[in-house]
């Protein structure tokens, strides 16, 4: 299952990047994507439940517009703090726990924290403990945390 899925995705990517539809290029594309899928399908998908994964991808796509807006806000904030003559910053390290269970969820939250206003992930542990460097005091992470937990759903795979 994951083998076929990987091969199809690899071949689609090949077509997207090459843009040529001659016989020799299509054949080598099929051969190459089969070889890559044979070696790496366990790395890319492993043993997955297709329904849960599709649901997660849909929720991730719904999360994206909010994240893009947060990134724009983060950048305007950083530009303001950089160019302000007295540099209004007051950094601190904060630690908090999350209920994230999958590595993908932890990676999404860690990258989202780094991209959004005034915070950079310093440490993200497998058990959901986060350590974050914040450029101003008193940042609240719970909104984003809840959104990422929502993407993950309540399955622990």
């Amino acid at each position, binding site marked *: 299952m994951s083998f076929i899925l990987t091969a199809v995705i690899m071949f689609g990517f090949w077509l997207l990047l090459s843009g040529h539809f001659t016989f020799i290029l299509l054949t080598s594309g099929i051969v190459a994507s089969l070889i890559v899928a044979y070696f790496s399908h366990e790395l890319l998908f492993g043993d997955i439940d297709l329904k849960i994964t599709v649901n997660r991808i849909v929720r991730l796509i719904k999360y994206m517009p909010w994240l893009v807006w947060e990134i724009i806000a983060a950048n305007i904030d*950083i530009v303001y703090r950089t160019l302000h003559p007295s540099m209004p910053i007051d950094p601190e390290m904060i630690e908090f726990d999350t209920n994230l269970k999958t590595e993908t969820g932890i990676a999404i939250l860690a990258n989202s924290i780094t991209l959004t206003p005034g915070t950079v992930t310093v440490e993200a542990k497998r058990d959901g403990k986060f350590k974050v460097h914040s450029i101003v005091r008193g940042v609240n992470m719970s909104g984003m945390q809840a959104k990422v937990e929502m993407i993950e759903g309540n399955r622990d795979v």
Partner: protein
Amino acid sequence: METRAIITLVLLGIGCFFIVVASVGIIRFPDFYTRVHPAGKTDTMGQAAVLIGLAVYEGLSLVSVKLVIIMLFLAIANPTATHALAKAAYVAGLRPWRKGEPRR
């Protein structure tokens, strides 16, 4: 064509502005952890604006699809690299700067 060129110019201008401000921030901020903030965030935004601008100029073609793919890869890789830098500094025992201390 005219409007497309204008949109491209605006996006390229925004992107260049953010990248320049990020460079200023890396020099102005007081210590390693705060310097990582402009490097990780503002560069992501800057490169995204520049690459989207180029994709708009190119129109709907394979080249613009490739530009968008490059943008997505950078948008994932950049915060990850930032996190790796910050974590390396933390593991090495670098103490974060507090308000009122001298610049490092």
